[in-house]
């Protein structure tokens, strides 16, 4: 255990001890620079949550720095609060600001989000410049030094150690955060937020949490800066500050905590070291930054993640073996886009252990019907119930939580995550808990799902490294990890070779054997006919036939629309046009 701890945390401990020891040898000037570097590193850890973990570009992060500094400064100066009491207040204020900026903007795509955050940063700065209580453009002056047990922290050395303690605490907190399920949700969102939502990740909540936690972490630097300088100067919180904070993460490596430390040193301490270059300092700094970005586009110390510890053997557990039974009823489902009716009066009943296929030519409305059922798009009309509970109007992640998960026509895996991690994200459909590490049950299920589709050996490989067929199977494993009642497979055999198709057929049979209801969209007629209990045929949004595979194969309308007429007029037409 001790050995385990030392290999896991020894590096950090050594790093902190060396930094602490360096403090003994530095002079006041270097200590002041070092303290500023640590303050930036804390800011960097904050923005790392938002940008590095959750992938939400924030160009106004200095706003949270400002809120922390002003709230603490004002409470100290106007209400004579103690520095230590103002800390939770500053953090809370920034967290509230995180909600204020986060909530209305979460629907925006990332580039628009960047503009909104940029505006937010400027709004905060302009507000404090114009308010009487914040001292207007003068800012706040006369902030007393921090005192601990009656001793004032005034020397640069004492202050350096104070900031170091803060940094270590923030480092530990963000370190713990990086191990939670929430961190996996963030990484999934960063990769593909729609896929994450569809397989059960409450993406809006996770994004909002990223803002709130990032803001709260970043806000810690505000009171520290106020205590260091004895003043809160609004010119410290400009757009340039936001850019430099962002630069800390870009230079260091997105999502990488040691990277943030390196980035802070580069952004804050390096310009100081370059002072000897005099007039050419800015040029030298800029060239160095460009050089770093060219040489190491992923950052100087990119995030390297510990592989997920998937158990070697699964512990048998009854409730997982016995998948939850479910019955899906879709009735009179319609969806129009403007004047075009993509799906009209779609009907589907699906019982536990059944396989129902939906076939039809491209553009027949199959995927639209699936998207309506899974909550991705709102149906114009109709009812969708699972075991009698309506799913209509639910957000996709709630549909997934109700027991209906899916795969996608064009594979949507989280390519920056490993195979096992992809499957783990699928667990959110079963359990939305965020603030704890993946549980044994989670990891057990991941193992079982990987075993089930035959990808257990590839658990620690990157999802993007898999072959096409394996990627399809991984998507199915991910959908199964949520322990669904119903699974919707959207063209799982597309692009597969005959062997892979054969395996897929067997896999679908085994899923059905678990008692899960399977809805399948597929073009491959032989596959559909061999696995399905019933087949629904769509054309131009209309259901033209429903029945057992044998009936469908004989249905003349189906043959005309889809399976192909014996004398197909189209090739002649094509030939004519070509000629």
């Amino acid at each position: 255990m001790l050995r385990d701890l030392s290999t896991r945390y020894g590096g950090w401990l050594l790093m902190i001890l060396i930094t602490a020891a360096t403090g003994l040898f530095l002079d006041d000037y270097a200590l002041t620079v070092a303290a500023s570097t640590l303050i930036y590193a804390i800011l960097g850890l904050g923005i790392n949550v938002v940008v590095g973990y959750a992938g939400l570009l924030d160009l106004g992060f200095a706003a949270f720095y400002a809120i922390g500094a002003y709230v603490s400064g004002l409470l100290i100066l106007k209400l004579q609060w103690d520095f230590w009491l103002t800390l939770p207040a500053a953090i809370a204020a920034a967290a509230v600001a995180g909600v204020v900026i986060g909530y209305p903007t979460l629907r925006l795509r990332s580039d628009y989000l960047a503009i909104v955050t940029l505006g937010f940063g400027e709004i905060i700065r302009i507000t404090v410049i114009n308010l009487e209580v914040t001292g207007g453009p003068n800012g706040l002056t006369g902030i007393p030094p921090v005192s601990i047990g009656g001793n004032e922290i005034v020397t640069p050395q004492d202050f350096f150690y104070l900031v170091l303690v803060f940094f270590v605490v923030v480092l530990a907190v963000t370190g713990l955060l990086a191990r939670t399920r929430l961190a996996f949700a963030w990484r999934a969102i960063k990769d593909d937020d729609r896929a994450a939502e569809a397989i059960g990740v409450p993406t809006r909540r996770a994004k909002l949490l990223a803002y709130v936690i990032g803001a709260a972490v970043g806000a810690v630097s505000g009171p520290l800066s106020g205590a260091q300088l004895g003043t809160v100067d609004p010119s410290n919180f400009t757009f340039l500050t936001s850019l430099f904070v962002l630069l800390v993460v870009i230079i260091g490596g997105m999502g990488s905590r040691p990277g943030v430390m390196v980035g802070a040193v580069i952004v804050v301490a390096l310009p100081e070291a370059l002072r000897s270059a005099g007039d050419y300092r800015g040029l030298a700094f800029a060239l160095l930054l460009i050089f770093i970005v060219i040489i190491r586009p992923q950052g100087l110390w990119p995030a390297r993640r510990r592989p997920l510890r998937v158990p070697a053997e699964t512990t048998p557990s009854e409730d997982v073996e016995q998948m939850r039974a479910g019955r899906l009823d879709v009735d009179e489902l319609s969806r129009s886009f403007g004047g075009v009716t993509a799906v009209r009066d779609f009907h589907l009943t699906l019982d536990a252990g059944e396989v129902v296929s939906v076939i039809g030519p491209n553009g027949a409305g199959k995927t639209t019907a699936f998207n309506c059922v899974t909550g991705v798009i709102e149906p114009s009309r109709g009812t969708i119930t699972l075991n009698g509970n309506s799913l209509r109007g639910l957000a996709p992640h709630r549909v997934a939580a109700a027991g209906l998960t899916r795969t996608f026509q064009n594979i949507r895996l989280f390519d920056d995550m490993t195979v096992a991690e992809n499957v783990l994200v699928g667990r959110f459909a079963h359990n939305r808990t965020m603030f704890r590490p993946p549980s044994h049950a989670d990891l057990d299920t991941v193992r079982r799902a990987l075993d089930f589709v035959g990808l257990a050996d590839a658990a620690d490989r990157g999802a993007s490294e898999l072959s096409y067929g394996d990627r399809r199977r991984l998507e199915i494993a991910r959908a199964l990890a949520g322990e669904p009642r119903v699974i919707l497979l959207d063209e799982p055999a597309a692009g597969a070779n005959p062997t892979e198709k054969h395996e897929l057929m067997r896999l679908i049979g085994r899923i059905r054997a678990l008692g899960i209801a399977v809805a399948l969209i597929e073009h491959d007629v032989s596959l559909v006919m061999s696995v399905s209990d019933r087949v629904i045929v769509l054309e131009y949004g209309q259901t033209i036939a429903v029945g057992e595979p044998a009936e469908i194969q004989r249905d003349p309308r189906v043959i005309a629309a889809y399976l192909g007429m014996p004398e197909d007029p189209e090739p002649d037409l094509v030939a004519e046009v070509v000629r």
Partner: protein
Amino acid sequence: MRHVSRALAAICIGLLITPLAACGSDSGGSGESGAIKIGVPVPLTGDSASAGQDILAAARVAADEVNAAGGVNGRKIEIIEADDACSAQQGAQAAQKLLNSGAVAIAGGYCSGAAVPALPIYGRRSVPFVLDASTNPVLTDTGDGKVFRTCGRDDKQGLFAAKFMTDQLKAKRVAVLHDNTTYAKGLAEAAANSIKQAGAAEVVYLDALQPGQSDYTPVLTKIASTTPDVAYYTGYFAEAGLLLKQRAQLGLKFPLVGGDATTDATVLKTAGTAADGYIATTAPLPKDLPTASSFVTSYKSKTGADPGPFSVYEYDAVKVLAKAIGDAKSTDGAEVTKALHAIKDFAGVTGKISFDQKGDREGLLYITVTVKNGEFTGYKKLDDAGTQWVDVKPA
């Protein structure tokens, strides 16, 4: 292996920090022998770098003159500089750097924002700081008597402007406009308060414009609606030029008086003939000071350029510090501070220098300038007694 690479990183970070330590810790002659070091914190990078270079050059001219005359207490004076980059963060770092290098007194500064966090750092070591350019009242108000200035302070300029507008221009209704920057807002409020306290006139308008825009006609129309006898604009030159031009276009008749951040040639370029007769309150420039002619000559011969607006104040700051160190016969901060307070009517190039209890310079050293024949020329100032308005005579 991971912890090994982390340790490597820690060492790398250590290596990055070490040069900082090395370049900061050459604190040789801070004792009682060797050169007496006077620190000059100014912006040497960023937008205000040229002002910083100018101030630094003036400090060197003053030090050279002192050294040529035998130095102070038999020791030479050495000027050491630090870049405060006009920011609070860098200001604190620059202060530590100067103290590390053994500075016994500080003369300089340009942006108030950079000076504010530096003051307590010098204060704790009892190192006196003579400001040459930072006119923000708060600096000496909170300076514990250890902060001095050879320049004026914004509220004194405000008082001066108020006197000028009500005495000389006979205004009864005054509009005051600023741009919400530290300096402009302070000056505007000081002017407005002085007018209110004197009771001779009324402040009919006090508000800010948004700097950086191109159309100020709404602001001007708003001001015109208050029918002022004069409007005082305390912001910067870019907006002043536009205000003058657009005031002429709107056909508004009230005269516009500006603060000392508007005496820039940009105003004349922007406003053209609309700038004729424009008046600004300002600290006297080297060319307005007959006493500064020898300084201007030696500055030019050393640098090949004309001295900038704050050069004379920095020159006086170094000179007055040399005098105080000589009087104190010591480089001890507390002794030098005491000697600075004891100085009476020291003959500087900007006039006679004495400090009040706070460390501010006594008297109203401001003048007004006006635009004549397409350039700023000296206009009116108060006589030595501070009662009569007399013409400013060029150097």
